[in-house]
């Protein structure tokens, strides 16, 4: 069978796509916590969430998670945040410089980097033992299609039915609670 693209080049392209995705996701996450305007931070958060959605599709093999991630996170929560910023007036758009400084920006990132390195080291030590014990190997992309959405839905309402019911009650409580929080203030005015 003749390949349109040589397999070696294809593998190289796959690594390149993965590299781009990593840079895109972590870069936009960094910008989401570092840009001055909170509006821009939310826009960078949307980009980061889309990157995570791509990871769900390409490497976790789940189109459903991609759809949920885009609808709920990138399209729902972030819009809610934009509304909250708009309703909070001008003060919410930019952080006050210097007020209530918790830690120097560079120091906090140095600390986070150090924590990252320590955790990565511990994980590599632990994970090598873990993989050896479990004898796990990366699966082929073809296996991704084995789990259909029907199977997922069936398990959601049988095996995990109690969890989903609890989650529904929690969401109802959250909705009523947030409505109460905002409504009470309106009545007071």
């Amino acid at each position: 069978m003749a390949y349109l693209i040589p397999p070696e080049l294809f593998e190289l392209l796959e690594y390149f796509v993965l590299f781009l995705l990593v840079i895109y996701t972590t870069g936009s996450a960094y910008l989401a916590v570092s840009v001055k305007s909170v509006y821009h931070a939310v826009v960078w958060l949307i980009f980061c969430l889309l990157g995570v959605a791509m990871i769900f599709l390409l490497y976790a093999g789940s189109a459903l998670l991609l759809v949920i991630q885009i609808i709920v996170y990138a399209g729902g929560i972030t819009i809610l945040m934009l509304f909250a910023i708009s309703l909070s007036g001008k003060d919410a758009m930019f952080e006050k410089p210097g007020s209530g400084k918790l830690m120097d920006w560079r120091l906090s990132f140095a600390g986070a980097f150090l924590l990252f390195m320590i955790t990565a080291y511990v994980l590599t030590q632990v994970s090598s033992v873990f993989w050896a014990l479990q004898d796990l190997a990366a699966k082929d992309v073809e296996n991704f299609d084995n789990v259909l959405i029907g199977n997922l839905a069936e398990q959601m309402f049988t095996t995990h039915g109690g969890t989903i019911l609890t989650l529904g009650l929690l969401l109802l409580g959250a909705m009523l609670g947030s409505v109460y929080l905002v409504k009470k203030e309106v009545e007071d005015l």
Partner: protein
Amino acid sequence: MIADASIFVGIALLLFFIGLAGFIKSKSAIRMLIAVELMLNSANINFAIFALYNDVGFVTGQIAVIISIALAAAEAAVGLGIILSVYRNHGTVEATDFQSLKG
């Protein structure tokens, strides 16, 4: 599949620590919420990727991600409700200015 789980554990770790650094650094309550969302997303990546390495847990892992996303939505709704309420009472969304519960 070209990439093994360690790459995605690395991405999740990076996202988590970026979120943690943002949470520690930020003064705005909305930006703190953004940092928490980043940390939750790192957990979601781990759920989805580790689910691949377990035949029994493949569907369970995806359901865990769905539950986590729903919880994040509830947390964001309540969090933003609190932020709006605090803004009405105090006229600011700076987390360091919320001192009503201080003894």
